[in-house]
């Protein structure tokens, strides 16, 4: 088992300093040519840690055009996409699912109106009013005291839409924790088919990285959903590109960015609506890092207004992930136990945070949509 130390294997040839320097700079130049488009785009969009001068951004744009013109950009982009697909193709295994509550938070407004008038305020209001305004601890208490099952009479009177094909889409939150819990929750409903598609690091800002419009059309054609629940935006606080990699709007050009992003959210929603689906947009939760939080506020605001414009239902997750003072909540009381609410990065939800938010969302969705737990129907 004895191995040689990790010491440099002596090279037999020394180089004159000029040859060394010429070679090193040539290597750097070859890398710059090959990866220049990526690097130039980052500078051009203002996504570097430092704010480049205007002439740097301008030069970067010319450089990108030039490299794209000779096909290098396309080659590096294609290879990059292949690499991302490869790394993204590995499934997650070893997941042990949480038991689904035998009675989820589907509350019949009519029934409650007759029996418990005060409860109607929180459950029968608009989506905006009910979208997670309750403090986490209160909601947790609600989760532990499920409402009684609907009577036959109430079920007959119920005019809420009953989705049968639910599509859950979004970025990493949907690919991982929240998406998994939502999928699990809807799978437990009677006569509901669920499809989930999540793509980490993606969003609506950068179709040159991942084209959500194209993917959405594919998903509509493949699954024909009647309800779409989407959460994108976590990676969108950056400069926007078009599909051809040209710059649509820089992040620091606030007005242009708001205009462009709003249009893109509307376009995204419209694809699903044209396919006959109702659309629910989940806002982004509060973030631990204050700088990121401020960016999310802008993004959520634009998303909410675009959703309203397209008559989609925007549900805020900001308040349901905040503490009583409206600040970032570190922990959550779930089923009587204090749990970490968020993942280590202060961005994503923890497993228990996802379970909690899923219960809240199912409860809120129950205002407009009728889901019947399969276990209960049996």
């Amino acid at each position, binding site marked *: 088992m004895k191995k040689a130390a990790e010491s440099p294997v*002596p*090279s037999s040839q020394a180089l004159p*300093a000029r040859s*060394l*320097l010429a070679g090193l700079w040539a290597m750097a130049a070859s890398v710059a040519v090959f990866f220049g488009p990526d690097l130039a785009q980052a500078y051009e969009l203002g996504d570097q840690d430092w704010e480049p001068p205007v002439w740097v951004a301008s030069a970067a744009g010319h450089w990108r055009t030039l490299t794209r013109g000779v096909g290098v950009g396309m080659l590096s982009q294609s290879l990059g996409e292949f690499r991302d697909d490869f790394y993204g193709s590995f499934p*997650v295994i070893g997941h042990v699912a949480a038991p689904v509550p035998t009675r989820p938070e589907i509350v019949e407004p009519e029934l409650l109106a007759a029996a418990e008038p005060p409860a109607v305020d929180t459950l029968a209001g608009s989506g905006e009013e009910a979208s997670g305004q309750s403090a986490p601890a209160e909601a947790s208490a609600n989760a532990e005291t499920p409402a009684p099952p609907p009577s036959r009479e109430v079920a007959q009177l119920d005019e809420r839409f009953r989705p049968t094909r639910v599509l859950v889409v979004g970025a990493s939150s949907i690919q991982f924790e929240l998406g998994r819990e939502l999928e699990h929750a809807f799978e437990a409903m009677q006569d509901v088919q669920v499809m989930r598609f999540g793509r980490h690091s993606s969003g609506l800002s950068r179709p040159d990285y991942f084209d959500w419009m194209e993917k959405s059309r594919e998903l509509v054609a493949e699954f024909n959903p009647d309800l779409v629940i989407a959460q994108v935006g976590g990676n969108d606080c950056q400069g926007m590109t078009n599909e051809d990699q040209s710059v649509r709007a820089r992040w620091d050009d606030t007005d242009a960015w708001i205009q462009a992003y709003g249009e893109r959210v509307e376009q995204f929603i419209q694809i699903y609506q044209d396919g006959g689906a109702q659309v629910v947009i989940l806002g982004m939760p509060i973030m631990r890092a204050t700088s990121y939080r401020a960016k999310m506020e802008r993004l959520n605001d634009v998303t909410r207004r675009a959703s309203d414009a397209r008559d989609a239902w925007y549900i805020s997750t900001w308040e349901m992930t905040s503490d009583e003072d409206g600040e970032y909540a570190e922990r959550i009381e779930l089923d009587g136990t204090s749990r970490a609410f968020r*993942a280590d990065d202060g961005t994503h939800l923890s497993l228990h945070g996802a379970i909690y938010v899923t219960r809240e969302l199912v409860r809120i969705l129950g205002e407009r949509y009728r889901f019947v737990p399969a276990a209960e129907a049996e």
Partner: protein
Amino acid sequence: MTFESSGFVLFILLVVTFWWLLAPRRVAQKVFLLLASIWFYGQFNWMFVGLLAVSTVVNWFIGLRVGPSLTSSLTWVRIGLAFNLLLLGFFKYFNFFRDSLDGVLGLVGLQSHLPVLTLLLPVGISFYSFQGIAYVVDVHRGQSPRATSLLDFSLFMGFFLKLLSGPIIRGRDFLPQLAAPSPPLAPDVSSAVGLLFSGLFKRMILASIFSGHGVHEAFSVPENYSAAALWVSMVGYTIELYCDFSGYTDLMRGFALLMGFRLPDNFNHPYIATNVGDFWRRWHMTFSNWLRDFIYFPLGGSKKGRARAYFNLFMTMFVCGIWHGASWGFILWGSIHGVALAFHKFLTDLRRDRGEDTGQQSPARETFGWLTTFLLVCLTRIFFRTPDLDTALTYFRRMFDLTVVGDGFDTLLLPAIVAGLAIQYVGPPVYGWFVRASDSFDVRKRFVFWSVVLILLLLIRPGGQSANAYFGF
């Protein structure tokens, strides 16, 4: 500034370029390198530069007053030790000491009334403080040349390629390199480029896979993960730490070699170790050697009887734990390794007493030794990485409960773990092949070959970013 960022690449290219352009004017080269090091360190915090300057001047001054033939040498060594330990202790351990003291006093209803200080831990202070101690003691023992030039000593302390996370260099290894005239040719360029590519592969690809796929989160919030995910994360983090730290060392040694400097090895494929003693001879070697020379030997080593040797091993690793950080998790981690080292020495002594050849191992014994050593290293990493003991205990508890609700793990981690273990075995032959292949080309083809390899490495890098795990120490 990360070591794979375009900013750092540009910085290092400029440094290497001016370094060679200034040759053979050695003083000009060294002044330039010192200014570059100061600028680099100042990017973290300019106040850190001031502290490093104080440490440098004090250790240099003391170094002029110690030596085997000087009568007051021992007194100055004590002053040097006190200075370096106080500097390190104040910035790194003051609040830990205060909290622990309050905890003990609180048991009897008392309080220390020591203030809570908001201290920024200067990056690399553990490394340069230990280097200062080593220099003073080595000069006192006659094991290192004395640096009469403040310029040389400043580079010895502040050379940016070893400042942040080592390797911990000794005066006898580095000062003669500074004193030597500038070489007419750049030596071992193929070896340097091989080290750079090795470092990029370990850090930018393997370590990034682990850091980008939930391994760290499992240690922070273990209640989110299933037992299977926790086991995979434990092994994954063990591999990641090696890839991150060893990859960083490879990069720094490679860059240094481009300028003609040889920095010492820090890793020798530690995960092929078949016992815990073997592991510590292979892991973070410049630090292990420091502990051996300045803790274990001064305590008496193995020359004061067996029981004392076991105690000395334990104490050495106890210090090792404390050095890593002011937390009970690190102390427990170091202590467990100390007990394991003492126990291994006890077993070795027993075998020697029976007349067995401890150098010879049967394949079965070797395999068993490898497995138990690797498992010990992995399991103790839980104390090393979790933020507190409660979280560590939660981690352990959930690892053995197959029914707990929790997230799974990304299967990408499995091939990454296999690759991380495989490089322990195939790394040296691949590296040797690379250097020989490079040398077989003429100069132009050599750089074309290297450019192609570099582009391939950059192409297959995943999105995550390696963690610079040892900056915090």
